[in-house]
């Protein structure tokens, strides 16, 4: 049943959620969009980050603090992953297509099953002062605090990473490595080291995003599958490697999803991101902001 109140509510929710989607996708925008690594396992790292946050929250940690603490751990994990990927595939070039994809698919699958074996298939959630409360604007429009906290953190994360890539020396080197490796090596930087660093950053950011994931709502090991669609949809929609595009694309997905959710029911929600992704691939694969 259409009503303006519902629509406005959906829009507000969508924008808040969209910012969160940008935050969970920005790591992928870096690893896949800029570095061209077929990182299908990105959503699994996200869910792993959420579970690590849950585990730390068990000791009374605040989820966001836990996420920040996990970031350096995930950074190292990301560096190791990239080193492995580089040594196994990228160094030899040619066959990285099939093998690289199968590798990350396998890794994603292993993470998911390990999470099931360790934590079981039940949903997990965390507690914090801002979870469970809401701010009531009108009777129809109540915005949960958790969504606002996640929104603020996501916005900071996304803008922070965009600034890092645009303003710092290392950030510029990361952008350069995506465009012209030869020019970069002429500048005296080692492309492999730069990529390794960038992949570390991407994974660290994913840990924080994972903390946001469990703040937003309960998490189960199979959540990664849905987020394959959401994250790749955002990255493709944005145009590969476009950081500012990632934010806009996240907002578009967030709004689209909440509108479908509001007017057609929650059971259709999973198809929104994947449907949008398919349409995008068919119509404009270079994305909204791609060249």
């Amino acid at each position: 049943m259409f009503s303006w109140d519902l629509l406005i509510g959906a829009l507000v929710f969508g924008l808040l959620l969209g910012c969160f989607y940008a935050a969970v996708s920005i790591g992928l925008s870096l690893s896949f969009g800029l570095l061209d690594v077929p990182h299908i396992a990105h959503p699994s790292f996200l869910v792993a980050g959420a579970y690590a946050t849950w585990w730390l929250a068990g000791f009374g940690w605040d989820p966001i603090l836990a996420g920040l603490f996990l970031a350096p751990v995930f950074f190292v994990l990301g560096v190791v992953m990239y080193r492995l990927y580089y040594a196994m595939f990228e160094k030899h070039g040619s066959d990285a297509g099939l093998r690289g994809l199968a590798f990350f698919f396998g890794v994603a699958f292993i993470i998911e099953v390990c999470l099931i074996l360790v934590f079981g298939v039940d949903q997990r959630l965390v507690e914090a002062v801002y979870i469970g409360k809401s701010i009531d604007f009108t009777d129809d429009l109540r915005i949960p605090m958790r969504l606002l906290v996640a929104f603020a953190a996501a916005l900071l994360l996304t803008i922070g990473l965009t600034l890092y890539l645009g303003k710092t020396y290392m950030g510029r080197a990361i952008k350069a490595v995506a465009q012209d490796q030869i020019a970069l090596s002429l500048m005296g930087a080692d492309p492999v080291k730069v990529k390794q660093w960038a992949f570390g950053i991407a994974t660290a950011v994913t840990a924080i995003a994972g903390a946001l994931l469990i703040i937003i709502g309960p998490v189960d090991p199979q959540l990664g599958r849905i987020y394959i669609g959401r994250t790749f949809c955002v990255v493709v929609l944005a145009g590969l490697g476009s950081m500012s595009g990632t934010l806009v694309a996240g907002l578009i997905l967030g709004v689209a999803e909440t509108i479908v959710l509001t007017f057609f029911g929650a059971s259709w929600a999973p198809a929104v991101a994947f449907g949008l992704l398919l349409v995008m691939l068919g119509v404009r694969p270079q994305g909204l902001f791609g060249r």
Partner: protein
Amino acid sequence: MSGKMSSMGGNNRIFVGGCIAVVLAAIALMTGVRTDYVFNASYVVLQFIVLASAWNILGGYAGYVNFGTSAFFAMGGYTALFMIKMFNAPLLVQIIAAACCTGVLGLGIGLISLRLRGIFFSIATVAVAIVLETVILNTDYFGGAKGLQMMRPEPIAPFTSYDTMLFFVMVLMAISAVAISRYIEQSWIGRGLRAIKDNEEAAECVGVPTLKLKLIATVVSGALMGAAGAPLVMYMRFIEPVSAFSLNYSVSALAMPIIGGTSSWIGPVIGALLLGSVQQIVTVTISSELNVLIVGVLLVFFVVVAPDGILGLVRKLRTKNSAKGDAKGGAQ
């Protein structure tokens, strides 16, 4: 790695010998020693031979990775359900209809994403799997999330039970899938697909119609997967989206060829026999989660350590043996 012509004789013998062995084993199973467990396990392994061979036509020969085998498989099952509900169609018609529908599905995904880099095709297959599952979940006609129960009709003449009939159909399907994948490998299509896998731009420049070949491969591969899914309804007497779209089909269909070896038709067969049997044993004796973990670990292990699969390992051993005494090593 001798010339193609010389290896063809042995290749033929393996294929024909394999077919005869499978048929004999099937007859023995159907008439003699049938316990339900062995019977079901064999059915599942045969099903995986079809899925793995089908996956390999596109993934192994052309290098385009399909993550959405479950979408094709489940769509085959639901097409069969539709044919039963709508027309009360016999099994053969169900299978043909399923193959047609999933072939068209493959064509659609291919047209959208095969012009792009390989990873976009892969993502598109995941997307189609989730979108289709969501549609089925929300469609009452197909039973929605609860699923639908179906009655089996009487089996056709020579068969005394429907189980035996389904088993026989699956045997035929496995043999045809392997035959088709073998035919494609050895025909001009196979050489073109291999050129695409090695270097797509160069392939196009020496006259290979790359898009057309990739579409052919996607359609054939998709149709075979759909055909494998068609008997699902009658086999289980029940169909429900979560198990029909199970990720396990997608992972196994990809892991089996990679473990067996993607370069030849026999790789997926080896992989399916091996991994399929291990899965059946582990699921029953230990746990189904561990079974899934084993598949994942094996997949990553082979991708990293032995990218040419068991087939590649065997070949390496063979060339090492034949080159013994010859002090100089080969290439690399």
